[in-house]
């Protein structure tokens, strides 16, 4: 038991080094070739700036001037709030649809219409409705993150494991118990897959709305730098979007790991150990 649970086997660090080293070398070589290509003029530096320029721009944006942070947090907030609204509405509607058949029947056509319309097309209208501030970005993020979450939650909730349901009924479970103990846990993995997609789309929504019309945010910074032909700074800004994307994705992955613990073997083992400890302490009392 204990040797399985201990995550750090001897020599893991070395293995990690050996695994990462070739990647780092390759990355360095690629950067070097790129730098040389720009210096010798094979690549025009206006269109693709040298890595050293990009690093300089990153240094300036993130350290010396620190302009990025305000914009970073604005875009981050827009994406997260928009996602929260979109996900809230999507999950509520999906649960209602799963519980009540007529609701599903008469709501789903509108959800489908919303799905086949490219949500991004709504950008100018949403800006006209909600103004140039953060409101319109949040609204667009909510609208375009709605559908993937809705459809995944609904699919998860209406998939039926007939055998298990039979078992639940035969031991006298109520409808509410079946929903809570059987259908919700079965739906959670799909729900989280939907949430991950939705989070990425919410970020896209926030950034696109910023391109269209805004005063603050990473999207504005990015288009401003691009139109000044300051490609190095523009790429440095793009990097901050990647960072937002990674933060959002991995925090959702973390939640997924914790909440849907039974899908991962290690998490399942940890959860059962915790339960065993709780039982033992209760027995002791």
């Amino acid at each position, binding site marked *: 038991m204990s040797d399985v649970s201990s995550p750090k086997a001897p020599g893991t660090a070395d293995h990690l080094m050996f695994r990462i080293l*070739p*990647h780092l070398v*390759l990355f360095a070589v690629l950067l070097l070739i790129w730098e040389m290509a720009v210096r010798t003029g094979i690549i025009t530096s206006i*269109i*693709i700036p040298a890595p050293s320029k990009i690093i300089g721009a990153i240094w300036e944006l993130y350290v010396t001037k620190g302009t990025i942070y305000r914009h970073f947090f604005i875009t981050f907030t827009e994406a997260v709030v928009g996602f929260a609204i979109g996900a809230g509405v999507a999950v509520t509607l999906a649960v209602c649809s799963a519980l009540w*058949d007529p609701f599903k*029947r*008469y709501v789903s*056509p509108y959800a489908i*219409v919303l*799905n*086949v*319309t*490219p*949500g*991004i*097309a*709504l*950008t*100018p*209208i949403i*800006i*006209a*409705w909600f103004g140039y501030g953060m409101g319109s970005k949040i609204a667009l993020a909510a609208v375009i993150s709605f559908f993937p979450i809705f459809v995944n939650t609904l699919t998860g909730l209406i998939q*039926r494991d*007939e055998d298990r*349901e*039979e078992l639940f009924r035969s031991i006298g479970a109520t409808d509410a118990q079946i929903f809570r103990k059987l259908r919700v846990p079965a739906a959670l993995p799909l729900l989280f897959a939907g949430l991950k997609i939705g989070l*990425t789309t919410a*970020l*896209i929504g926030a*950034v*696109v709305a910023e*391109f*269209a019309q805004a005063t603050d945010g*990473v*999207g504005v910074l*990015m*288009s401003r730098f*691009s*139109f000044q*032909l300051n*490609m190095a700074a*523009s*790429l440095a800004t*793009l990097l901050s*979007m*990647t960072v937002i*994307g*990674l933060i959002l*994705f991995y925090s959702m992955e973390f939640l997924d790991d914790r909440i849907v613990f039974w899908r991962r073997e290690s998490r399942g083992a940890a959860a059962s150990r915790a339960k065993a400890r709780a039982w033992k302490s209760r027995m002791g009392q």
Partner: protein
Amino acid sequence: MSVHDAIPMPEQRGGLSLRKRRLIIHASIFLGLIALWEICSRLGWLDPLFYPRPSSILHSFWLIYFQNANVWYHLYTTMVLVLAGFIGGSILGIGLGALVGFNAVIRRFLKPYVIVLEATPRIAVAPLLIAALGFGASSKIAIIVLVCFFAPFINTLSGVVNVNEERLELFRSLGASKMQTLRKLVLPDAVPVIMAGERLALTAALSGALVAEFIQRDKGIGSLILVYSRNLNMASAFACIFTLTILGFLIFRGMEWLDHRIAYWKNEAGMERVAAKRAAQMGDLNV
């Protein structure tokens, strides 16, 4: 057995089938919503400047399609871009996906870059590409290619990599050549996955085109929507949006049809069709 199956539903009531009755309910809900919207607007609860009436949206449809007929040109421009970018992105995505899928070394070294690229909102590169390639069709197509490259790439990659191990073993033990394994084992399982990627790609291509047009603001349906909503001509903007809805629906259906045609072995009807065709060919040979 679920509850719904257990309770017998009345199939006939008042001479209408269940299907027809449901259609009527659908239609009445829809018409009720439209009427509610129209009435709210007429009573002054919804500002028609921002929330156009259904009747004025219908009128705008008439205007932009027939009276002014200005939507056709923009629609055509956008569609040409979408198709060009989609085809380019698909070829690039499927080609690279296959290349990477069949080569474990490239796959290992490419993985970190793919993860980083996946986290980046790819549409965000649009201003960069426009600055690099200039205004006009080329930068728009580049944006669309970039936006719709990823889904076919990832799906081709996973389709090629996720081969059923047991079947592969069987193929090996029967002495199948590489080509045979590819044709008879890898492709039949990979093609439906690739087609699913293509569906996503076409939707993404349309979004990419719109974003490119929002930024460039010269022509195309995206810039038309932008101009209309800037002028607070919301009815016409909505007419354009509903046009895109119809277009999106056609794209969805078209891709579904294509999927059924290409990956025919995944559905019953397709199998029957191909089987009948082959039987006919065999019959010709016999005669």
